[in-house]
């Protein structure tokens, strides 16, 4: 009887969280899938079951393809660069160089700002003729150009903003991990005459692997779920050159109000996130040396 009471107790404690999770996570996920198999109700025409039609439409949709390609380039541009920069920053700040507290603050500050504020600042930075970038390039006699308004450069510009915002954040995880490596390792390696690069490659980097995995997973997730700067800086333009997947979902769902097609796109997004999660769980976790 006592056991029964405890069990009821536990469910009561869980109830509020479970209700909200069901309402805003589980049910919407299921509903997204159901919706993706239906047509969007318009006017008097009710939603009808259309099977995989939305998916077929999606595969033929040039904007969807471009959003996926853009998102992959964006991920490829942001993830390795911000991780490498974060590692470099952490190694520098970990050494006893002059003013490292100030340096650490300079690297980390962009992380605290809202992405929307960051985007506004960079919008100003990229402004044709007037912005700082143009002024500096002008000094070297470079011709002016519209960085955000050109299909060649828009995606690169928003990628750079994401790197700027993220690198300092990842730095602190590397810094904490570096400080956990016992100094005796460095002493022993130095006694043996190991060059610094070898020490980094053979000792530090492998020991940092759990951190790299953690940072990597977060970088991948961020590459798919952060589109605030796109809304402010380019609105996916010009000519969809900087449209990312989530931004396209937002556009389809709330500008074109094609909810079932947006649901279909959301399924793609959820699958991508699921692959990341499974990859993390099954592949990477097992190969990494934990202390």
């Amino acid at each position: 009887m006592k056991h029964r009471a405890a069990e009821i107790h536990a469910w009561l404690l869980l109830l509020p969280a479970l209700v909200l999770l069901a309402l805003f996570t589980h049910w919407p996920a299921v509903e997204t899938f159901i919706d993706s198999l239906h047509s969007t109700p318009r006017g008097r025409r009710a939603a009808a079951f259309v099977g995989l039609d939305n998916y077929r439409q999606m595969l033929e949709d040039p904007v969807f393809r471009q959003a996926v390609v853009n998102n992959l380039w964006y991920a490829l541009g942001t993830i390795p660069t911000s991780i490498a920069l974060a590692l470099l920053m952490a190694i520098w700040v970990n050494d006893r160089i002059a003013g490292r507290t100030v340096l650490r603050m300079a690297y980390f500050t962009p992380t605290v700002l809202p992405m929307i504020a960051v985007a506004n600042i960079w919008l100003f930075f990229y402004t044709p003729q007037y912005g700082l970038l143009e002024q500096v390039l002008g000094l070297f006699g470079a011709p002016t150009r519209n960085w955000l308004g050109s299909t060649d450069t828009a995606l690169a510009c928003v990628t750079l903003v994401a790197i700027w915002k993220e690198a300092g954040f990842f730095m602190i995880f590397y810094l904490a991990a570096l400080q956990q490596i016992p100094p005796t390792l460095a002493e022993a390696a130095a006694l043996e005459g190991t060059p610094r690069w070898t020490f980094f490659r053979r000792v530090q980097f492998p020991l940092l692997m759990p951190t790299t995995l953690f940072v990597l997973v977060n970088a991948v997730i961020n590459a798919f779920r952060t589109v605030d700067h796109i809304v402010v800086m380019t609105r996916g333009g010009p000519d969809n050159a900087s449209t990312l997947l989530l931004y396209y979902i937002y556009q389809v769902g709330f500008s074109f109000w094609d909810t079932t097609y947006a649901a279909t796109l959301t399924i793609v997004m959820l699958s991508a996130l699921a692959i990341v999660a499974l990859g993390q769980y099954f592949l990477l976790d097992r190969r990494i040396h934990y202390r």
Partner: protein
Amino acid sequence: MSTATGAYEPRGAARLAETTGAWLLAVLWILPLVYAAWAAFHAPEFSARFSPSAPWTLENFVRAWQAAPFARYFLNTFVLVTLTLACQFLLCTLAAYAFTRYRFVGREVVFALVLAQLMIMPDVLIVENYRTMSWLGILDSIPAIALPYVASAFGIFLLRQTFKTVPKELEDAARIEGASDLQILVKVYVPLARPIYVAYGLVSVSFHWNNFLWPLIVTNSVEARPLTVGLQVFASTDQGIDWSIICAATLMTSAPLLLAFLLFQRQFIQSFLRAGIR
């Protein structure tokens, strides 16, 4: 903080190169911010012209403050982050306690269902969640912004990990003194997990202070809009392209978090480390 690479500290020319590199990167990193600050504190005619004799002014902040209901936006954001955090603390604490302290049929399954939220994030389910809010009749309100994030899988996970480290002896001692389950939670578990609450709180506040896309979607009135959305509406429609006033508004909206960060740097960094992310 001690350095772990003592034996590999660069010397001589290598050290000079490293210091120079680090400082160059730092200057590059902070440059866009300094540039925005310059524009914000100078009259529009100097916003893109750098001259040491340019007079400093607060005029842009005054004009920005008057041009849009920023006071209301600040209040909304404040209510939003407080409401979110209070509810997160309450719900996550109760749930984490249930997962740590109780054995019940299906515990592992339910925990896995909770963790599913780490993958199926509210940020992505915008279309369906919008429909749910409209069905609940709470579109364009602050609770609508907060609700999808309140039952945070991350918070539950973090607190469960912490609660698990609480020694059984402490709990037994409290039980002998006649404390009920809820009293044990409040008197033993919660105080011991304080650093984690602080860490999670800082991370949650900065996340929701900065969150943009979902609030943009569910709100469309001054009464519900948080700062981020207010800033966007202000910068994109009201102002044309008066950069000095936009920069002033941008700095103004980020100022509270930025100041808090500069004052409590160590706590911030510690918290982000403790709580990982989100």
